[in-house]
């Protein structure tokens, strides 16, 4: 994986000391909150309901064991012994003191991590396919391109104050495992008919209060023009994106209001101009970066698994993913125990996962946007030992992509923007389905919960989505069906009037009843919904 050079390290170290001085001046009363707020946000420090929250960037979700151990140490030293892995492949700490924040950032810098650009109207952490570099179906490892984009977008002087925040995802397979088309810019690395690798650009997607699927704006950008094209996309947005209304300031509104064709025309015009300006990094830089992502030294080994233990066999079936080397798999570490808090991990669990990454996955880990962790390269022969270790630590839930693998934002338990709690719903739904034994029968069913319209819980993209709203001071939940963040991307539609907490949990069960009654051979929930439409579900829910 990528390692900082002297410039990266110097930039991050300097930023820590700059923030240390800013925090000191705030604590001494020399800065008002209005003056300090944009400074702390530039360093990932939010003020949430109960305390300051620090959001740490994990570029494209990739980290090593040493970094995970540092995250665990920060949880113990400056927080309350746990962290929360997010839908942008980051980690958040919920109880950071302002006094300690610069020290926490300094500890992060020692392991080549930071919290820069995890907030504010700038280009945020670049996300990617969690199976990158391991997946059997990718045309290339997307992470060198994500890293090139990270370096280009870090402290980019022209894009530090965009109209709104800006999120980019990079994938390199037809399967979309990064919600690519629900990003401000989605990039798919692919091969053209001549066998050349390039980039397909989508622009203007997003969730939030106005969810939109990004349209294709360029079918193929040669790799030696990747940054130039991205720069052109950003320049048009930065110039014409609305700054008068934050709810209409995302690029999706600009693309929608201009129309994809006109936005594309303007990007192409800017692109032609930028080509002559020579902003593209030299190819040697991409080659230098790519060298950090060479395959580890895979060795041949057994390709079959002893399935005599049914619990182990179930975990293998659900939580492992086909690897490009046939003696390996990628193994998902579930952070979704029944009744647990999605995405939360204790410091002890983080240290264990770090050890397992060293022992079984070439020192490499991933954070998934589904709020789970992943060991990308595990020998099939090592799976029994890995599973035993995970199971003993409460990390062996066999539930990937099932109704127990719920994405849930922190919601009103932590977040100052939330209108309703998300986590208790996730806890109760997993308990309900674990108790009724239907999880396996339901198959792939992605349930996503957001505590407010900002949609951090990706409810628009849930096969079943739940949105918490404030109804005259009480929590109320809107149910929606039919969303997908994958290559068959779609936005969920609201079923009808909302429910209280008990009601929405019962409603989820009702919806699954309709599915089980109507499904045909091999259909996922989403397939059945798309075939029969909303009406049978509405009829069952509202009569």
């Amino acid at each position: 994986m990528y390692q900082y050079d002297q410039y990266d390290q110097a930039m991050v170290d300097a930023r820590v000391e700059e923030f240390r001085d800013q925090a000191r001046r705030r604590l001494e009363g020399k800065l008002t909150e209005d003056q300090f707020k944009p400074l702390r946000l530039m360093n990932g420090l939010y003020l949430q309901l109960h305390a300051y929250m620090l959001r740490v960037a994990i570029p494209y979700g990739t980290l090593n064991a040493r970094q995970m151990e540092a995250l665990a140490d920060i949880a113990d030293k400056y927080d309350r012994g746990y962290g929360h892995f997010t839908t942008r492949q980051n980690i958040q700490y919920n109880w950071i003191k302002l006094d300690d924040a610069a020290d926490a950032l300094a500890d992060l810098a020692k392991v080549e991590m930071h919290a820069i650009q995890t907030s504010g109207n700038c280009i945020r952490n670049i996300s990617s396919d969690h199976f990158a570099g391991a997946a059997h179906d990718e045309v290339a490892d997307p992470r060198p391109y994500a890293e090139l984009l990270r370096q280009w977008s870090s402290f980019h002087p022209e894009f530090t104050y965009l109209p709104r925040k800006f999120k980019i995802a990079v994938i390199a397979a037809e399967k979309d495992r990064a919600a690519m088309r629900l990003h401000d810019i989605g990039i798919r690395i692919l091969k053209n008919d001549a066998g050349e690798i390039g980039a397909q650009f989508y622009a203007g997607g997003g969730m939030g209060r106005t969810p939109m699927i990004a349209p294709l704006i360029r079918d193929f950008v040669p790799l030696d023009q990747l940054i130039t094209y991205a720069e052109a996309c950003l320049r048009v947005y930065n110039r014409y994106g609305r700054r008068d209304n934050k709810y209409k300031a995302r690029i999706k509104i600009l693309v929608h209001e201009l129309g994809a064709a006109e936005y594309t025309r303007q990007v192409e015009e800017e692109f032609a101009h930028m080509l002559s300006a020579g902003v593209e990094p030299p190819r040697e830089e991409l080659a230098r970066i790519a060298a950090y992502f060479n395959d580890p030294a895979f060795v041949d080994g057994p390709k079959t698994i002893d399935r005599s233990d049914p619990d182990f066999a179930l975990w293998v079936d659900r939580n492992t993913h086909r690897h490009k080397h046939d003696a390996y798999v990628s193994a998902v570490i579930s952070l979704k125990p029944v009744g647990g808090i999605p995405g939360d991990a204790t410091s002890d669990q983080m240290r264990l996962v770090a050890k397992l990454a060293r022992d079984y996955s070439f020192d490499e880990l991933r954070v998934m946007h589904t709020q789970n962790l992943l060991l990308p390269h595990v020998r099939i022969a090592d799976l029994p030992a890995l599973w035993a270790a995970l199971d003993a630590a409460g990390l062996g839930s066999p539930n990937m992509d099932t109704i127990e693998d719920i994405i849930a934002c922190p919601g009103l338990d932590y977040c100052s923007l939330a209108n309703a709690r998300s986590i208790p719903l996730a806890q109760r739904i997993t308990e309900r389905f674990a108790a009724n034994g239907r999880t396996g029968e339901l198959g792939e069913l992605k349930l996503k919960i957001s505590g407010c319209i900002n949609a951090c819980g990706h409810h628009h993209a849930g096969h079943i989505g739940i949105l918490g709203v404030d109804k005259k001071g009480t929590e109320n939940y809107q149910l929606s069906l039919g969303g997908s963040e994958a290559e068959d991307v779609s936005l969920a539609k609201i079923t009808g009037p909302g429910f209280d907490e008990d009601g929405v949990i019962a409603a989820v069960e009702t919806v699954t009843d309709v599915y089980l009654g109507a499904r045909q051979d091999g259909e996922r929930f989403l397939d059945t919904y798309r075939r029969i439409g909303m009406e049978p579900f509405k009829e069952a829910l509202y009569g």
Partner: protein
Amino acid sequence: MKILTGNDLGSGAVTWWNGKGWSLFVDDAVDVGEDADEILARETAARRVNVPYAIEASIDAAGHVRPAHIKDRVRALGPTVRRDLAVPTAGKTGWDWVI
């Protein structure tokens, strides 16, 4: 009743105006009545607490101060999903986890 709340500058912890300063315990909150704006202006200028604001509250059947809005009730007691991290109640009993 009208009470004042904010977040402590250093820790970010939720605090409540007790008539003389800022307390971690919602039960210490006092009714500021018509004085809310004056106290808020003074405390904002003193820069000891982040973004203080006034909220409506009542006294519940057990005698506890109960903020009117659910968001402030969660702030008062801590995350409902981590009771182990709940705000200490200074030896008081009879808390009803109000949502």
